[in-house]
């Protein structure tokens, strides 16, 4: 090759992965709509583009494989061969194999993948068998009409640019840091009084621009959920096939957008929920017929925005949650005493207990030791919640609610024990001075708020920080479960947009701390996990 191919490799890989994902979706879609020529055309184009691109870069194995694949697809297109379940499975396996090859090829690794020879032979048989028309293999020109629609590599979407998520992360962090240092300049100018007035006005103008930049960066990170939902059609197909069931996936709200980081971290929990719906939610075709339902079950993956949150639902039209079975399993697992009786809500909660799984037998798909407890934990780490709703005979719906973005949260900055901490603003109700007289000065105490008693923690003491400096303390009142609780701090430093970072590997999972952020002066402040701090067990402490 006389040009620098290495620069093209990342583009090749990401385009090939997109192409393979689209082939997979087409194949699953064709199973229910075998005569849809549009889908078939798209499938064919994707295979053809992959063949062309890999040939350009000299990846012989991929080129040869896609060539045969294309032959098979051509016969399907000409209706010489019927795209039955068996052939669809073969083609889906081929897509999987190509994924492996695409990953290996750029590293110069052209060793055959497992089953490559067997799959190739099977494809060749499919391409040769099932009809006459010997000329097909020898006449590649016959398919150019479909393949050429201006979608050649490098010419299709010239106005798009692929940007690494790392860079977007960094850009977002910088935008957030600018916002924080701005708010500091603002307060300095404010404190300067009259001489700083004009500067303050100019500063406010610039602040608006900064906000626009930050919003734009946030927008750039937003992607529609459709692309991450569509591969679940395959999940449903494979899970149903393995269980002798029939099911299809319906996607609603493909265009709903969320932060790429949220979308990525949702993938595993949703896969698990979709599999669960097929494995445990829907009935076998004969049972469904007996109940007067369509034999093919429907799993619906639905996304929408609601009150500033992202809502994702995984719904099935199956039998609904079998309360008796859940109770029996919970007793068997020792999660529940024999005599205990529970309401519907508590029964549903049992499914999220660690070690609970109603699978009668461990299956390849849902028996990998992941339970709903892990799903809930994953969602909780995204600051989200999972709820269950079920109607006997009509189906089950799992609802995930998440904040739209993870990276930036409105925070409330406080000082305690010589350090600064951030509380998520959403949990702060109000702030007041903590009267010093008449109360315990230990790590906990009770304050009075409009005639109600509010228990509080002293942040500096609870976190073992340095000595309390201030003679006067403030109480930040936060929501805690059904009621209110307080956090006693040395000072209130105000609101700020906080760019959330982890605590830095390998310092993770410190109880009571959910992350960190870099403040305007370049120092690090910890973000407190208020719920965890308030709910941790503590000894009755009295000074």
């Amino acid at each position, binding site marked *: 090759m006389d040009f620098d191919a290495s620069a093209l490799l990342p583009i090749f890989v990401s385009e090939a992965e997109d192409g393979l994902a689209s082939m997979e979706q087409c194949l699953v879609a064709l199973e229910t709509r075998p005569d849809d020529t549009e889908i078939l055309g798209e499938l064919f184009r994707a295979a053809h583009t992959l063949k062309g691109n890999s040939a350009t870069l000299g990846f012989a194995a991929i080129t040869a494989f896609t060539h045969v694949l294309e032959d098979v697809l051509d016969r399907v297109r000409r209706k010489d061969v019927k795209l039955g379940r068996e052939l669809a499975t073969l083609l889906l396996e081929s897509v999987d194999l190509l994924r492996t090859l695409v990953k290996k090829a750029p590293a110069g690794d052209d060793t055959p993948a497992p089953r490559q020879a067997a799959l190739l032979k099977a494809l060749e048989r499919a391409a040769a068998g099932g009809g006459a028309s010997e000329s097909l293999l020898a006449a590649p020109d016959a398919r150019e009409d479909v393949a050429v629609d201006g979608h050649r590599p490098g010419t299709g979407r010239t106005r798009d640019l692929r940007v690494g998520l790392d860079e977007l992360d960094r850009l977002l962090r910088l935008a957030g840091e600018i916002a924080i240092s701005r708010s500091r300049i603002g307060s300095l100018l404010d404190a300067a009084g009259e001489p700083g007035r004009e500067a303050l006005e100019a500063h406010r103008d610039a602040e608006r621009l900064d906000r626009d930049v930050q919003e734009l960066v946030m927008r750039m990170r937003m992607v529609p959920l459709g692309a991450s939902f569509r591969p679940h059609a395959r999940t449903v197909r494979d899970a149903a096939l393995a269980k002798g069931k029939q099911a299809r996936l319906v996607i609603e709200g493909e265009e709903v957008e969320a932060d790429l980081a949220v979308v990525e971290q949702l993938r595993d929990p949703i896969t698990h929920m979709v599999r669960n719906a097929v494995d445990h939610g829907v009935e076998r075709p004969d049972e469904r017929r007996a109940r007067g339902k369509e034999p093919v079950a429907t799993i619906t993956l639905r996304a929408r925005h609601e009150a500033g949150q992202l809502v994702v639902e995984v719904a099935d039209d199956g039998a609904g949650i079998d309360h008796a079975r859940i109770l029996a399993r919970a007793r068997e697992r020792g999660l529940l005493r024999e005599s205990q009786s529970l309401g519907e809500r508590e029964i549903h909660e049992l499914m999220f207990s660690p070690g609970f799984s109603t699978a009668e037998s461990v299956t390849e798909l849902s028996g990998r030791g992941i339970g709903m407890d892990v799903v809930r934990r994953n969602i909780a780490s995204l600051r989200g919640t999972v709820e269950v709703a079920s109607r006997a005979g009509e189906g089950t719906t799992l609802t995930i609610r998440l904040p739209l973005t993870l990276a930036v949260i409105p925070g409330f900055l406080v000082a305690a024990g010589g350090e600064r901490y951030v509380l998520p603003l959403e949990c702060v109700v109000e702030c007041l001075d903590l009267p010093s007289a008449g109360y315990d000065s230990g790590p906990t105490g009770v304050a009075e708020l409009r005639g109600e008693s509010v228990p509080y923690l002293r942040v500096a003491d609870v*976190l073992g920080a340095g000595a309390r400096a201030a003679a006067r303390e403030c109480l930040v009142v936060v929501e805690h479960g059904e009621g209110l609780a307080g956090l006693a701090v040395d000072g209130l430093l105000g609101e700020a947009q906080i760019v959330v970072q982890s605590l830095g*590997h390998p310092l993770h*999972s*410190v109880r009571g701390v959910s992350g960190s952020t*870099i403040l305007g002066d370049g*120092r*690090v*402040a910890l973000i407190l996990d208020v719920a965890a701090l308030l709910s941790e067990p503590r000894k009755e402490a009295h000074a």
Partner: protein
Amino acid sequence: MIEAPEPEAAVLQFLSFQMGGLACAVDLAHVREIVRYEHVTRVPRVASCVRGVINLRGSVVPVIDLAVGFGLREGAVTAETCLLMVDLMVGGERSVMGVVAESVSQVLELRGDELEPVPAFGTPIPAAALVGLARSEGGFTLVLDVQRLMAEGTFLNARAAGERAVFGTPISMEKTA
């Protein structure tokens, strides 16, 4: 630098520094940079040898005080105190950490055979934490096996399980007011 004549006599580079009043050194290959010791944000509920976290050009990075980890006397922060930013594999992940040094001395160039084996006992730091000793005018420089020390990164979160020893040395525990 003169080309090494024999492979076993290859020259190794170490950065020597003062830690807990001792002359120590680490393989220079692990040291990414040296930064001034500035404000370190304390992190609660971790082993006391974790001084906290700092902002290293936009990334949050932990700071480790090995002197505390080894139960040595903790040096006061002076103008000479600095952080060796070491680049290591911890639990299969690359991570950068700051190691507190009371002062940085020099780069030592040693041939492999100049690195003396660690005696079974008698060193102020447990033998398991060392790769060897380097002889210098004033005595010995303790060459730390920093990769191995940090690879057992679980000790960083030791506070939760009650303080645990690092290489057999009990960690002195701070009082929580």
